[in-house]
């Protein structure tokens, strides 16, 4: 654990992210709010660019931009809830407002700060070879925290995700559970960033789950299959990106999309056969 080469560090990080992101994605998909992860990841970008800028202005503070990114993601999720109340008739406006505000602010900060474009591309699209030991510790710690929260509140999350009204009536503290869930998303986004990049975190959260939705027959199976698909895409993605020298995040996402297409095609083939049998 202590002496890992850069490629080993990258693979360990990728494995962790490949399991955790789809796990949270399942709850988001069932809650019909997959898009929230997309907006929060863009807000995380603002946090990171703010963190980098702060590091440039006050050279004394040496906080990893990942922490400021996490902080912004959390604030963003709270803000989305607030905006949903303001636009009670156009609730779906909240996510795009936060999303574009986040990107707009980070665009200004990025171009105002003097650092080169390559550094930003690392954050935007991920760079698995640049996972340092301290990043890996951050990822391991957040992964542990996410699993702990999920294990402790599994029942509450399931019931809130499937039927908020019912959960409310049965005495689940809806506000607290929702806040915990926002915390979860923020954690997942900030941990995935190093591996797949901010613009692609949403993909790792949405695509494996979208594929699993077509196959799984129960919630447990959905969870299991999503993690399985996620891991498959991440591992294959890391391998191919290394072989062909392509950005890792992009490769992982493309492979998850291919996986999704394969599942959809398989499903269609199956139903066609069934129809033939009946005919």
């Amino acid at each position: 654990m202590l002496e890992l080469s850069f490629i080993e560090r990258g693979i360990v990080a990728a494995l962790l992210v490949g399991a955790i992101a789809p796990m949270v994605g399942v709850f988001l998909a069932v809650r019909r709010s997959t898009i929230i992860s997309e907006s929060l990841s863009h807000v995380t970008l603002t946090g990171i660019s703010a963190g980098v800028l702060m590091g440039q202005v006050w050279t004394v503070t040496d906080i990893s931009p990942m922490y400021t990114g996490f902080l912004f993601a959390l604030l963003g999720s709270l803000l989305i809830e607030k905006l949903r109340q303001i636009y009670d008739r156009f609730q779906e406006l909240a996510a795009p407002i936060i999303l574009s505000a986040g990107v707009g602010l980070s665009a200004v900060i990025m171009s105002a700060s003097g650092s080169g474009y390559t550094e930003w591309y690392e954050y935007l699209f991920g760079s698995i070879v640049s996972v340092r030991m301290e990043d890996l510790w951050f990822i391991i710690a957040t992964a542990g925290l996410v699993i702990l929260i999920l294990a402790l509140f599994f029942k509450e999350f399931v019931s809130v995700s499937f039927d908020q009204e019912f959960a409310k009536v049965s005495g689940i503290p809806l506000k607290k559970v929702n806040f915990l869930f926002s915390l979860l998303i923020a954690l997942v986004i900030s941990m995935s960033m190093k591996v797949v990049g901010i613009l692609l975190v949403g993909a790792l959260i949405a695509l494996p789950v979208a594929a699993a939705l077509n196959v799984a027959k129960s919630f447990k199976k959905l969870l299991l299959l999503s993690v399985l698909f996620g891991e498959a895409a991440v591992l294959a993605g890391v391998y191919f990106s290394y072989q062909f020298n392509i950005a890792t995040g992009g490769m992982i996402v493309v492979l998850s999309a291919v996986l999704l297409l394969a599942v959809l095609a398989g499903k269609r083939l199956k139903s066609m056969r069934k129809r033939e049998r009946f005919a």
Partner: protein
Amino acid sequence: MFDLFFQYEFLRNAFLAGIIIGFLAPVLGVFIVVRRMALVTDALSHITLTGIAFHLLLSQSAVFLQAINPLYMGMAFSVGGSILMEKLRHVYKHYQEIAVPIIMSSGIGLGVVFISLADGFNNDLFNYLFGSVLAVTPTDLTAITAVLVVVVILLVLFYKELLFLAFDEEQAKVSGIPNKWLNFLFIVMTALVIASSMRIVGILLVSALVTLPVAAAIQLSKSFKQMFIYSIIIGEISVISGLVSAFYLNVAPGGMIVLIALGILLLVIGGRKAGGMGVRKLRGRKTLEWRKA
């Protein structure tokens, strides 16, 4: 302050393109927001990036493509993506909203792969992502003007039908409006506007220009017509002031434009809150009495 913009050709191009976009994006945005499709524009803009990256990759081997503006490939991809999204909606009958993130994330993933194949992680990419004052070429301006003409003609011709469709799709269908065809037309119009806004505001921020002015206008306006007028005014203010300030501050214009639009939105929400306090107090009392009874 503005004289520099009239002196140099590239700045004039950017300025004219900005005025056109500041008009087009909010006008379509009104329909988009009312139809609850705000997120679709995000997905389409990400797919546009894929198209542009694909063009950059292809033009490395096929020289004749270098003469063609990558915008057209972006438009083609974004129309293709919108058709695919409709298809996905049918596949996920119970989880329709997942179609948007699927298209959005696979679009950008594929785009990243194309970019790294083309060795394109450089300043150009940054301009595509966040916009640039310097990037508007004369051919871009002609393409954007063409889009303006096409979209305005289509809007004038089909205004009533689109309005009907936006507010009540079911009834529009029943009353014999060819909704499938019109939906397609609308999506194509959106794709065109997204692709043409991209030069100035950047791919990641196009959707902001479509939604933010409308989100602010919703709070102010009392009728659909007012919504158009307010959206256009807010859109133009943000684009023009964003462009000029970005040029003088030397930052990405997309970011500046979005921040100004956001500032207007916050002002409007704040103003309404301050003005609405009294009303809400009354309303609160009413519900309380109702509860007691």
